[in-house]
């Protein structure tokens, strides 16, 4: 049969960021997909050669506008490990709260984009309206809606008053209650089920074979989550990974829907358990220059991120590397696209929640 090559991207209505897949088709079936990235490669890893380690954190959190907080946190946690800095307990709890707020805003953003891609404009608007509330919380507590710059090596720059934390929790719980109706539509609307159900199935065996991460792997029935490792105060939180078993596009939507609720509950537990009072220490500034290396793993909204930081006792790091969840999920995406109908490619690509800025650094 004659083969046709169709370039998907770099500009496409479902792609908020540039990615190219050369789709090789026989009739309407995709038989191969060759990825090309690099359209927004900024060489952030190269910048360690000339940006001092104290300033590099502000660069790292600009890897991505959606995972900004957690990139900053991952960088600071890595340097704290190298420099043996003990972070005050309240600062660790505050980081957890902001990290989970990040997860909620990321999932709401993606759910909106997903709804827009399968033609449900109304859901898109509801999700993004709710996300605005989350961004308002970020602005109120960190001063920034997208780039927060609240992480410091050794702690955090700002505290959140106990009364404000209580107000934030009340607001999140109210948002969670309102979100139930939106989630109900995602989960029960027949047109959504028809469009996403049974499409782009990643079996449990395939998910393991391609080392997928995050909601992508949990939607294939694998209960894995870096937070279960217990670092960064998660050992004091009672939670189980959200798992679906169908492995299709709809399952990936359902995992993210349920993780919004889960994050609100995690924030509730964190606020309940953190030490209370005014004037508690939130930062323990490091001394000297970093020397050593560390691998750090965090569970970002899209899945596990791995940072490698190597310092040699100078003001410049020798190596900084971020392996983002989207990078880890590209092999899964290629596997899913092979054999699917051309018309399903947009939804399959979107349901991995691709972040090309993260991937390219």
């Amino acid at each position, binding site marked *: 049969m004659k083969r046709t090559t169709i370039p998907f991207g770099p500009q496409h209505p479902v792609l908020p960021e540039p990615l190219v897949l050369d789709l090789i088709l026989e009739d309407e079936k995709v038989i191969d997909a060759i990825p*090309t990235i690099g359209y927004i490669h900024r060489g952030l890893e190269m910048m360690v*050669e000339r940006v001092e380690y104290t300033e590099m954190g502000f660069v790292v959190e600009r890897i991505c506008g959606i995972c900004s907080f957690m990139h900053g946190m991952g960088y600071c946690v890595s340097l704290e490990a190298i420099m043996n800095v003990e972070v005050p307990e309240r600062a660790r709890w505050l980081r957890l709260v902001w990290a989970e707020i990040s997860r909620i805003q990321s999932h709401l953003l993606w759910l909106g984009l997903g709804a827009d891609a399968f033609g449900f404009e109304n859901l898109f608007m509801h999700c993004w309206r709710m996300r605005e509330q989350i961004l308002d919380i970020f602005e109120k507590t960190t001063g920034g809606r997208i780039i927060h710059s609240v992480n410091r090596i050794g702690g955090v720059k700002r505290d959140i008053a106990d009364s404000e934390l209580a107000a934030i929790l009340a607001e999140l719980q109210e948002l969670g209650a309102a979100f139930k109706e939106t989630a109900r539509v995602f989960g029960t609307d027949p047109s959504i089920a028809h469009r996403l159900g049974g499409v782009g199935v990643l079996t449990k065996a395939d998910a393991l074979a391609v080392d997928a991460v995050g909601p992508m792997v949990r939607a294939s029935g694998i209960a*894995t989550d870096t937070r279960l490792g217990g670092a960064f105060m998660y050992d004091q939180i009672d939670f189980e990974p959200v798992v679906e078993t169908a492995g299709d596009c709809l399952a990936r939507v359902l995992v993210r829907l349920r993780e919004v609720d889960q994050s609100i509950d995690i924030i509730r537990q964190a606020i309940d358990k953190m030490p209370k009072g005014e004037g508690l220490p939130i930062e323990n500034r490091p001394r000297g220059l970093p020397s050593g290396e560390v691998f750090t*793993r965090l569970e970002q909204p899209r899945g596990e991120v*791995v940072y*490698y930081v190597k310092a*040699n006792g*100078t003001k410049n790091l020798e190596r900084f590397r971020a392996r983002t969840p989207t990078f880890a999920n590209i*092999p899964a995406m290629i596997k899913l696209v092979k054999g699917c109908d051309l018309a399903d490619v947009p939804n399959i690509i979107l349901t991995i929640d691709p972040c090309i800025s993260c991937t*390219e650094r």
Partner: protein
Amino acid sequence: MDTTAFLARVEEYHRDGWRLALINVTTVLPAAPAAHGAQTAVEAAAVGAAPLDGPGVFEIAWGFARGGEFKTIREQIEQGQSVPSISEFFGAAFLYENEIRELFGINVTGMGVDLKGQLYKTATRVPFSHGAVKARLAALAASAVKPS
């Protein structure tokens, strides 16, 4: 590197249920600038403390995760040497392997999927090769030294 022993270790990780978390490469520079009192690699190059014409060495770390555990296999290779692909055991390895070839110039033999150099679009060809890193550091050093 001992390819047979390396692949046997990788197979062991695969058999024991580990997941490939990343493959990371570091361009190893020839001198430790701090030993010469310089605080940055640029300063070290500027005062001639870090000769940038040493042998080209890369350190490669294959990182594996299992639950909360994380382990690495480390190898140092000289520029021009090849490393074997681990695609046979870890299907996702091809992406990392294409990346290290494009960004570091390391040849990986037997890759599961060869993207033929079209994964990244970078302004500098092989930006983390020893030649490229040294050229950047030398340029930074030259711009940092002001004539007296």
